[in-house]
Every structure is written in C-alpha cells, then in structure tokens.
C-alpha cells in the first residue's frame, strides 16, 4: 500500500460499502489528532474515480471535523471488493475487538461481497469469536437486518447477545413496544423479560401490543408516577404472574402468611427456590450472645403465633 496525501473532499463518504462501525464518539480521537496528529492514516481504495474508505471511518470523520488537509491515506490498489474488505477486516482484527453490531455488519458485508455461507461459518465466525454454526450465522445476519434506530438503542444500552437472540425473533412491529421496557433493565432481566413475553405471545397467539394492552399492564404503562425502571420492573412482575400463575399464587400466599406473623424484620425467611421441597431457610446475623438470644427469642415468639403453621400450608401440593 502506498501512502498518499489527498484533499478531504476527495473522499466519497456517501459510499459505505466497507463501513462496519456506526455508533461512536469522535471526541477523544479529535483531541488526540489535535495533540499528536494523525498517526495511523485511513485506508482508501479507488472506485470509478472516487476514493472510498476501506478502513478508518472514525479517523476520516475526525479529520473532516478538523478540516485536516492534506489528509494522509494508505491507498489500497485492489479492485476486488471482497479482497479489499478482507484485508481491512484482518488488519482490524489484530488491533481491536468488534462489538456485536460490528460483527453482524462484517458478516452481512461478506455475504454482500459474495463470500459463501459455508466459508463464512467455517472461516470467519471463529475469527470473530462466534461459534461456527449455521444458527449463529443466521442470528448475526438477523441482527444486521435491524433498523438503524434499533441498532443505535442496542449499542447505547449494550444489549447482550442472549437478549438479542430473543429480540430478533420478534417482528419489527412487536419489537417496537419492547424497547422502552427492555432498556432500563439489567442484562439478565432483559433476557428473562423477552423470554416471558415471547412465550405469552406464542402460547396465546397474541402480539406484544395485545399483551401489553391488557388490564393492569396498560395502567402501569400509562402511569405518569413511575420511572422507566419502575415501569419495566412492574411490567416484568405482572408478566411473570401471567406466565406462572401457580407459582405466583404460591409466592403471594407465602408473603401473606408471613405478614400475619409480624415476622421479625431482621430475620430473613425463605422457601427453597421454586418450592421444590418443603424446607424453609432462615438467615440472620448476630454479634454477641445477647444479640443471638434476642433473635432466637423473636423466632420463638413468631412460632408461637397460631398462624405459624400457615407458612407450611402454603407449600402443600395436594
């Protein structure tokens, strides 16, 4: 590759055929170029008399912001788009990690440049740290088909692959009302929420909109008093109740039985996960013999209340 100085306006920024990164901030790069100059020039290649960026979009855009002229570039003399893209991809691979969206874009571009499906799966997916299976190939192709505004949200909120895997299984119409619920939640909850909604949709033959317009859910979503996170959490709870009615009823019965006992606040009592057996656990801390005996005495008092047995009745199966 030859290095060459060009005028910034010689770059054809409208042709994004080699571009894989979209969501980035130029601030730190601009600061760096101002201070030390452009250390690593972008790679460009000529097509129909115009220069297209093969690698270094961020650098090129930062230089444009700075009106840096002349702009030093590496000129790649390669007429084949696939070969040019491959070169830039392999070069990039050695210096940085790709985000999920960038990986999906790389795969889509490879398909567009005519690389075969089998070769992409066997050769490129491992390079991108993606398991080399058809299912993962399809998943990343589906991610690449999301709308730009969806991609931006996903990028901003750093939605994990496990949630994306679910998300792309929804239709675009179904995805749209999901984002406000999804994005305030942590990564694990995102995945769980999507799974529950998807199963409710599939089992009831309903759309996401129809599910969310149902009774209490609608009230929560329209409420002006709740923050986005509070709304998402409340919706999550209500959906869980719909999806797991027996389990939810048992949980509610347990909470209600516990309330009747005026259970000591600093002693935690809990059933086994999902009530798989009848054992219950208590947990408390103490820092002296006196403190310990006080807690034991509080437990004795709770157990003496007539309704104590009700705690166990909530976990009867027949």
């Amino acid at each position, binding site marked *: 590759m030859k290095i060459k100085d060009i005028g910034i306006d010689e770059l054809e920024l409208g042709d994004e055929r080699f571009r894989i990164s979209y969501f980035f901030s130029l601030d730190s790069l601009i600061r760096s170029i101002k201070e030390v100059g452009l250390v690593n020039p972008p790679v460009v290649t000529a097509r129909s008399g115009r220069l297209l960026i093969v690698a270094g979009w961020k650098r090129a855009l930062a230089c444009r912001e700075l009106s840096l002229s002349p702009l030093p570039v590496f000129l790649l003399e390669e007429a084949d788009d696939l070969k040019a893209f491959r070169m830039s991809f392999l070069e990039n691979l050695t210096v940085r990690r790709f985000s999920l969206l960038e990986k999906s874009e790389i795969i889509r571009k490879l398909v567009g440049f005519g690389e075969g*499906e*089998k070769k992409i*799966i*066997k050769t490129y997916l491992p390079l991108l740290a993606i398991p*080399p*299976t*058809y*299912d993962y190939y399809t998943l990343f192709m589906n991610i690449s088909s999301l709308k730009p505004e969806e991609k931006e949200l996903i990028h901003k909120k750093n939605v994990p692959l496990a949630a994306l*895997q679910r998300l792309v299984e929804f239709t675009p119409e179904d995805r749209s009302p999901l984002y406000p619920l999804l994005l305030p939640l942590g990564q694990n909850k995102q995945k769980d929420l999507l799974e529950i909604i998807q*199963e409710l949709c*599939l*089992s009831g033959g309903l759309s996401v909109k129809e599910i969310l317009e149902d009774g209490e859910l609608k009230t929560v979503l329209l409420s002006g008093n709740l923050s986005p996170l509070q709304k998402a959490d409340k919706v999550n709870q209500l959906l869980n109740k719909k*999806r*797991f*009615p*027996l*389990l939810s009823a*048992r949980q509610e019965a347990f909470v209600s039985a516990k309330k009747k006992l005026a259970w000591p606040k600093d002693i935690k009592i809990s059933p086994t*996960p*999902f*009530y*798989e*057996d*009848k054992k219950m656990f208590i947990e408390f801390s103490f820092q002296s013999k006196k403190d310990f005996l006080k807690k034991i005495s509080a437990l004795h008092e709770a157990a003496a209340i007539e309704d104590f047995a009700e705690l166990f009745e909530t976990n009867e*199966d*027949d």
Partner: protein
Amino acid sequence: MIEANFKPDKIYIDSQAAGYPLTEKIQHNTKGIPFEIVGSVHELLEDIRTVKDPVSFGKKNLLLTVQKGEFIKPCPCTPGYIGCNYFIINLDLNCPLDCSYCILQHYLSNPFLTIHVNREDLWAQLDTFLANQKRDGLRIGTGELGDSLALDHLTESSKDLVSYFRKKKNVLFELKTKTINVENILAVEPAENIIVSWSLNAEEMAESEERGAPSIAERLEAAQKLAGKGFRLGFHFDPIILHPGWEKGYKTMIKSLLSSVDPDRIAWISLGTLRFAPHLKPIIRKRFPESRIFYEELIRGRDGKFRYFKPIRFRLYKNIIDCLRREGGGRIPLYFCMESREIWQEVLKKKPRGKEDVERTISLPLGRRA
C-alpha cells in the same frame, strides 16, 4: 412414521472402523446405500455444524466409528434428584426418530446416527465390569443415548446382547425403544433377566411430539408379541406431558397397555415428567415451532433444568398412578426417573434413602411382589 426398516441416506465410515465384522455386516445390510470412508471424524463433525439443521441431517446419516473410551457408564441421572443405580451401554448414539423433547438434540456433540463397531471391546469391557459387580439386581441397558432397536435391522445387536446377558442371571438387561423393530428379538429365546421396554405416552402426545415413532397401539402390539414369546416387558411413561385432555389421554394409554399385556409380565414402569436443559428450548422452538410443550409452568429445578412446578408434577403423577392401580396394574413396580424425595414421599409414600433403595424396589424378581 419412519419405516421399521429405516435406511440411512448415506453411511460415513471412520477409517478406523473399516474391516470390523460389524462394519461389514452393516454394509451387507445396507446394500445400495452410498458410503464414504472418512479420514477425520473431527472434520466431518465440523462440516455438519455448518448445515442448516445438523440434528435432522444427522438423523438421516450413519457414522460407523469405534468407541475409544468406556462402553459402560453409570447413568448420570441429574444433580439434586434421586437416581436408580442404572448402568448404560453406549453402543449406538442418536436415533432416527425425531421427538421434540429429546435431550440428544443438544446433549451430543455428534449429531450423526452413530454405531460403535468394535463390539469385541464391548464384550471384554462387560466381562470386566460385571465381574466387579457382586450384587444381584444390577440393571443395565442400551437405550439412554439412542433407541435400543431403531437400528437393530442393520446391526442385529439385540441377538448378541440377549445371548450374552442370558447367562448373567444376576443382571437385568433392558432394551428400550419406541419402535416396533422386534424381528431379531422374536428370533431368539427369552430369558427372565432380559427386559424389553417401550416408552409410552398419551396418543395425542405421541402423534404430535414423537415424530416418526410408531403409534402407541403399534408399540403395544409389538410388546404383546414379545410377551407372547415369553419376554418380560418394561414401560416408561416418560416424558409425561401436561396438555389439554391429559387425564383422558393417559387413562386411554394405560387401559390399552393393561388390556394388551398381562401386568405380571411387566417388570417395571418408570415415570418422569417433561424436563430439559435450558439449551434445548431454542432448539425445540426452532425445530418444532408447532410444539406447545414448553408453554406450561416450567421452573428451574435443583439441577438447573426446566421441569413442571411441583404441584403440577404431583397432580400428573398422582392421577396416572391412581389410574394404573384402578386399571389392574397395582402390583407393577413403579419408580420415578429423576424425581425429588418429596415427590417419592408424597405420591408413592416411599422414602428411598438413595439410588440403591430405588434399585432394590425395581429389581424384585417376578413372583415376589408386594
């Protein structure tokens, strides 16, 4: 339904498997089917991962290879639940039937129908293993990682296995199947310690979730033939699936079973409700989009697998066991597969201390039942 004489699309022969008598027998029994000698099974498996549905592809293609490790392993059961001390012989892996709930869809890294052809090593390993097992009533079988009889017309393994185990009087040997591929067994003499078992389900579930498997009536007809010949039978109500009309569905199946087969010829019936590892869910969703099996209340059990919330399991088991007893199956030994102590206690009123206790319950010889 697949035909009883299932034929693969193609046979891949691991170069290390060439020349074994069983390889030659299979080639003889599959004349006309293309085959390819493969130098690297690893590369073959890498290749199959790139196809759209490796599981379906694997179900149509046969791989003959050698078992480099142990043929015999204790059944791993599942953490946190009570096992039954069963031992498994890993002869053939995978199965041409295509059940939506089958754990093999994700359990095995090799999706091919695989036959381990080095049977000479199997007999040697069995000799050593059984010589070290001093107790009576040890149960061992071939149907855990594949159907015991689905490929029997190609391998004729059942004849050899029955002949081998017939002499091991203190061992109960089980062939477990959903097929009606019993011609080879019908050709050999029965023995009290040989049990041929069928997985049974409500007919509606068999039709919708057990793609390619014979109907319940056909399975029972095959069982009846073997009982007529003098074989002992086993049945596995597994996975029991909650579905609209399940009570009627399981009742009909139980009535058919007990009107087809003398309960005294039934060595045991196991029961287990639907359970599967989380990784199986997306596979079921993709391969069986019409299946509704995971829309019920499935929670994460102690082993991390999905299973019905306990009150549902309790109701399913109680109803089915009551039905079995009402319909004349009260003396048949029952056990749960991968269930909790609480379920054993609440439903069967038994308190097994561990897998040895369960084994003792099941291995009761005929005529000594409570």
